[in-house]
């Protein structure tokens, strides 16, 4: 069940700072431990930057979840950029087509409980991450 939602834009590096702050606020509200907060914030930072850098900007949707007594936060990053031709390759540690360290996608997958990625070349990319308390 979703009890609270919000959507933030990703169009500048200032937006990424704001997204990190929002994730901190939402996870703190959910009672996440400091470690879990930091993991979710860091994953969000990576995915927001990808949406900005490779996807040409987009948005992130926040959803507070409740499932059989457990509470969690789901974030969905969506852009209408060029898409990712080979998702498996993109998820490989160290793979980058830019100047990065190639650890954003693979690293954020390790920082969360659920990770889903859907991408169509020429249409865009959607990454959904969830972390439960």
């Amino acid at each position, binding site marked *: 069940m979703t009890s609270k939602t919000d959507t933030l834009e990703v169009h500048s590096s200032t937006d990424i700072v704001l997204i990190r702050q929002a994730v901190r606020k939402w996870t703190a509200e959910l009672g996440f431990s*400091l*470690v879990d907060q*930091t*993991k979710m*914030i*860091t994953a969000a930072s990576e995915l927001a930057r990808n949406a900005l850098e490779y996807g040409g900007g987009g948005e992130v949707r926040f959803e507070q979840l409740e499932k059989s007594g457990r509470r969690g936060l789901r974030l969905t990053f969506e852009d209408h950029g060029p898409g990712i031709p080979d998702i498996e390759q993109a998820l490989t540690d160290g793979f980058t087509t830019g100047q990065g*360290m190639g650890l954003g996608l693979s690293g954020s997958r390790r*920082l969360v409980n659920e990770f889903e990625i859907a991408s169509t070349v020429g249409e865009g990319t959607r990454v959904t991450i969830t972390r439960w308390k």
Partner: protein
Amino acid sequence: MSAQGLKKGRLAGIVGNHEAEILANWVGEQTAVKGRRGASLNESELRAQCEAFLRAFRESLNGAASTDVESNEWRAVRGMLDELSRARAAKGFSSSEMAFFVMSLKRPLFGLLREIGGDAQSLADTTWEATEILDRMALFTTEVYQKAREEIIARQQEEMLELSTPVVTLWKGILALPMIGTLDSARTQTMMESLLQTILDTGSSIAIIDITGVPTVDTLTAQHLLKTVTAARLMGAECILSGIRPQIAQTIVHLGLDLGGMITKASLADAFAVALERTGRTIVRVRTGPGRESTATAIGMDPPA
């Protein structure tokens, strides 16, 4: 909306003849909602602002031919609103609070118009004129407020950027860069460049980068850090990373970042001790008398070769 011509002098006359009454009611309107907000003015300050505004308002009404507050005739009122909005923006008022300053003049003004009465047509006309003018002024105010806020934010960001380069010399040849706050890319870049420049200027051999005050380290921040360490090494200086808090350490591990090439220490103090040792110094406790130790410590001389 298109500006409307003013019916000769009626509104101006009414405001002029009842200035004191309007002022009292207007101030009353505004103090009535006080208390639900953070930033506030004291009442005499508010009264002075309202009084000055009403005077300018009346004078402009006297000379104005239309309700178009953007026109030259309303310049004095605009100047006053401009100044007020900026001052309030700096004080942390919200844009709706700023609009309320103007809008709250409606009730006292309309009440007065109704009391004075007259024929239905001129009452309607005058009320309409007053509405137009006040709405336009409220709009103008919000725009000025918005601009002022944006200017404040831009200035603060610039100041932050400058503030964020506090490279300090801890000891001869030992530098420290205490990083604080959110590290966006531009800021990190500036800090790192300033560290490298200071290494060059001071000929330092050790730089401590302390991240105690940094809430998150993502791959971009890490990349900046690693690049700096590599560049410093090429310049003959070693970097020590200190202040990695537990939550950051765990996150770094999961991200898959390899900081293995860096010397890391839990605290700035530990890093400083290592730095002293590496530059051939030790910290010794100084005895001040027989059996008594002072709490003071001193940094020892370079040991004999």
